[in-house]
């Protein structure tokens, strides 16, 4: 279900964009206020709450011990789920994840997985028998646009905040829990195309008139680890190159924000 804006609001928004302006006065490639709080949820192995303007997302990690997949007997298992609960928006409904939640979970999951964020080989306890299972859960409380970046930053912060609960599972002595082995810092930057204008971090009203969306996830070496075009519009090739170029500076800044908040440098 797409949310609908009145004709007048739409025209106003289109006019603004055409003049290179935004509703809240931001620049085209500027984020809203970013607030990241890591470690707020005790029962989670790691957690982060990200506020991107009024968009409010919790990410929590839980770990369990289980069997590896037969084709990767020496690596841990990583699984990401997103819930777009009806608290967050009048358009969300109760029930199993729909296609929006599924796309969100899969896109940010690919950023983590393909970006080798977690060193899953270090999550093997006993080859072929016992590995760590890492659950990443995205819980959206307030949806005011750009869930992809809020969730992406939240996951990165929550992973950096995660302690492997080895003692609880009798895999280590008490107080010998250790930080989740992190290899890379990956964050996404999500661009929205409205008519011919491209802008970063669209808020809800901008999303409602957006033609297409492009998420680019980069690691600390400026390597692209995941991309996804969304919505029913198109991008031309040149614009995608431009987005990648812009993403380098943008991701560099958000990466710093995430790492600073968690205060963990030794990755």
């Amino acid at each position, binding site marked *: 279900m797409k949310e609908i804006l009145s004709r007048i609001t739409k025209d106003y928004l289109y006019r603004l964009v055409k003049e290179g302006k935004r509703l809240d006065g931001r620049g085209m490639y500027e984020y809203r206020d970013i607030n990241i709080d890591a470690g*707020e*949820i*005790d*029962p*989670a192995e790691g*957690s982060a709450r990200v506020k991107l303007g*009024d968009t*409010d997302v*919790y990410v*929590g*990690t*839980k770990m*369990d011990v289980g069997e590896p997949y037969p084709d990767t007997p020496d690596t841990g298992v990583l699984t990401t*789920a997103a*819930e777009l*609960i*009806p*608290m*967050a*928006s*009048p358009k969300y409904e*109760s029930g*199993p*994840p729909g296609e929006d939640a599924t796309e969100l979970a899969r896109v940010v999951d690919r950023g983590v997985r393909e970006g080798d964020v977690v060193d899953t080989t270090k999550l093997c306890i006993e080859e072929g028998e016992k590995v760590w299972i890492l*659950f990443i*859960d995205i*819980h959206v*409380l*307030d*949806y*005011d646009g750009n869930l992809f970046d809020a969730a992406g930053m939240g996951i990165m912060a929550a992973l950096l905040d995660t302690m492997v609960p080895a003692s609880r599972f009798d895999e280590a002595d008490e107080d010998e829990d250790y930080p989740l082995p992190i290899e890379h810092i990956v964050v996404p930057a999500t661009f929205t195309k409205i008519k011919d204008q491209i802008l970063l971090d669209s808020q809800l009203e901008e999303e409602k008139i957006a033609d297409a969306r492009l998420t680019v996830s980069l690691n600390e070496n400026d390597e692209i680890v995941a991309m996804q075009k969304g919505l029913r519009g198109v991008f031309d090739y040149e614009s995608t190159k431009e987005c990648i170029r812009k993403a380098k500076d943008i991701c560099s800044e958000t990466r710093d924000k995430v790492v600073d908040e968690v205060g963990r440098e030794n990755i």
Partner: protein
Amino acid sequence: MGSNKDIELIKDGKRIDGRDFDELREIKIKAGVLKRADGSAYLEWGKNKVMAAVYGPREMHPRHAQETTKAVVRARYNMAAFSVPDRKRPGPDRRSIEISKLISEALEKVVFTEKYPRSVIDVFVEVLQASAGTRCCGLTAASVALADAGIPMSDLVASCASGKIEGQVVLDLGKNEDNYGQADLPIGYIPRSDELCLLQMDGNLSEDEYEEAMDMSIEACKEIYEIQKEALREKYSTELQAEKLNEEEM
């Protein structure tokens, strides 16, 4: 009550977290914290962290669930996957279905539902961190969120539990007390009319213990009621200040 293991819950006349028998854990409530919802409240109660949001009155879907003479109050209680030590699988389980039903029933009594026939007032309770007593947290936060949404109500509902540990009736069970205690008695209380809109018990209580526990809970609900009203007052005063500032700027 989960288990009968011998865990010491009372020492030197105090409970393991240092509380007196009739002492509540610390409660903080903030109203109006979400943008999209029509009303909302964030509550911390001991180590519990709970968000409540309200949408509506709005058109009821599916249609056959509409009531022709009044609005339906439809609560949904949900625990985040990471809110408990063992990951909670997403989606409703039998426990959350029952709690959702009880919260719906408890709130409907205080809402002037007859003002909104064929409508639904959706109440969402999300438990972000759970530590015993989440249904009371949810009901307490939900009634603040309803008020924050501007829904006409006859009163707020305050909710809290009492119970029994090591033979002693105590107020507001903590996590270990809940796991290893002997009885749990959560109530929902409407202060103005002095009525019970939620009442459950499980464990083992004599008639006398029931009365002792209820007396404690009702007193505590009156305290909680003050915290709820304070949260709403603070929200309104902030809004008033903001409006004033706006006027000055103009």
